[in-house]
């Protein structure tokens, strides 16, 4: 723990080198990862997934099915890890909690008027408390992007701090919705605000807005985490979400994570993928490595 917390002046401009970030991010995709390291990388990525269903049409049955999948990813492949967590709406937390029992798979709940965040502070706090009381281990909040774009940085800071307090023991993920912040400068600023205000994770997107997670935007956030760690000694976790559906891309993210933050972050306590279809693609790749035969979606579970 840090004794004194020096909060920087968020109104000061931040400058991110856009060309440099994009160039650097593209370099991570050039690494060749084969055989043994590929298998280990895929298993690690699988273990970092927050298996997600955030639809208006979600039912208890759908959530139970997803929880079953989390525990039985592909039973014909013995020794597979489970995913890290199931990510659902607050109303589904209790169902998920019962379905997952003591498996060690966590239940994450979105809260704070997800995905738009257009509501009052009071409602957001109650939304959060509802999720936590139902047993959520992690809370994924959204920031008020409108207020952020208006320059109301203190509002955002106070909002995150208030939700953090409402979370209690639960770990707080702060969704910046980078697709609505548009520039890397704003992403970096929002990351800094979130971390100083008490976020345990910073997360790119809700998955409802395009573009969602991209490698450059994740790189900006990882660098923010690195700088924050050097300044305060406190580790913050990262969660890119949305648009990561192929194993190859997931491996690129792991390469980036390793080269920016290092091995300490290479586990599901400090890094997550928010995804729904990534798990199946990784499973198909693992089975390809094991059997030597290209796989078909016909032989894997649908969700």
């Amino acid at each position: 723990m840090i004794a004194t917390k020096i909060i920087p002046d968020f109104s000061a401009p931040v400058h991110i080198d856009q060309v440099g970030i994009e160039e650097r991010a593209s370099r991570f995709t050039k690494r060749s990862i084969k055989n043994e390291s590929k298998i280990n990388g895929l298993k690690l990525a699988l273990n970092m997934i927050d298996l997600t269903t955030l639809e208006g049409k979600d039912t208890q049955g759908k959530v139970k099915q997803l929880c079953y999948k989390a525990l039985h990813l592909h039973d014909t492949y013995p020794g597979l890890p489970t995913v890290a967590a199931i990510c659902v709406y607050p109303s589904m937390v209790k169902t998920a909690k019962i379905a997952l029992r003591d498996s060690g798979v966590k239940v994450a709940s979105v809260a704070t008027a997800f995905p738009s965040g257009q509501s009052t502070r009071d409602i957001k706090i109650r939304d959060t408390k509802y999720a936590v009381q139902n047993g959520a281990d992690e809370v994924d909040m959204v920031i008020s992007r409108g207020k952020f774009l208006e320059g109301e940085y203190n509002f955002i800071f106070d909002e995150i701090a208030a939700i953090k307090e409402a979370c209690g023991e639960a770990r707080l993920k702060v969704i910046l919705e980078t697709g609505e912040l548009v520039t890397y400068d704003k992403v970096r600023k929002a990351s800094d605000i979130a971390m100083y205000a008490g976020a345990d994770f910073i997360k790119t997107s809700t998955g409802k807005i395009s573009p969602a997670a991209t490698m450059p935007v994740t790189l900006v956030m990882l660098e923010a985490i690195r700088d924050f760690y050097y300044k305060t000694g406190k580790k913050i976790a990262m969660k890119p979400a949305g648009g990561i559906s192929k194993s190859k891309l997931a491996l690129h993210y792991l390469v980036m994570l390793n080269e920016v933050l290092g091995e300490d972050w290479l586990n599901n306590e400090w890094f997550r993928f928010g995804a729904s279809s990534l798990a199946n693609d990784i499973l198909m790749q693992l089975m390809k490595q094991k059997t030597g035969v290209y796989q078909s979606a016909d032989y894997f579970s649908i969700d």
Partner: protein
Amino acid sequence: MATTTGNRLEVLKTYKIYIGGQFPRTESGRYYIATNSKKEKLANVCLSSRKDFRDAVGKARGAFGGWSGRAAFNRGQILYRIAEMLEGRKAQFVDELMKQDSTKAQAEKEVSLCIDRLIYYSGWCDKFQQLFSSVNPVASSHFNFSNPEPMGVIATIAPQGDSLLGLVSVIAPIIAGGNTCVALASNTKPLCAVTFAEVLNSSDLPGGVVNILTGKVAELAPFFADHMDVNATVYCESDATTQKMIKEKSALNVKRVVLYDKVKWNDAGGQSPYFIMDLQEIKTTWHPIENIGGAKAGY
């Protein structure tokens, strides 16, 4: 290879593969030199890898829903359109066939036959279903009927000899029946296959329905046979070792194996609705009804 006519350097065509409605080079970056019987160099051709095949299967799978879901009549229209486009580029195909050792008369006959064959299968698109469907008598209160439905993604190793006619003759019944396919063109005579892909690309055929690769049969055949997302493998040569290998590997996901090693593509036996039926599943539906045949007595 470059030849000059007058003072102008002739622009030669790059023969690329056809995947998902686009013309990429092979991901492997490899190529081989296609020659004629006099060992004259004709073109550099992509030596496709297993990953090109994997990508092509992915595209074919993606295109399957849309293609099989189209009205059969519309599929017929598109096959007719392919024939129209082929007719318009007849001269180019004749020229390429002649480069690959055909005489002018042979080449013209082969191209005409290809066009006619496409028209033939175009007509069958919305007719074979009636011919091969049946209403079945059953001893319960059900209306019971069977009809053909496309299998899915078909991996085809095209005839090596009749480079254009063979390819057209195996692809046409596959797509007429609502399947999508990945075809490996003739290794020794690949020129027409690539040009045929250009014809497909300009004839309203959705990208991914037909994918055409060039390369070595021995290298790619095992993947054509063991890819889990392929529903049937078609092989047109009589090489017994390859046939056995394809049958064994296809057993992995119980693929259908269709061997056309005795078909003569250039005569009347080279076209038939049974070629469409070779790659169809028969689906039987039991539809509950109040009573059978409008009478209380039943069968």
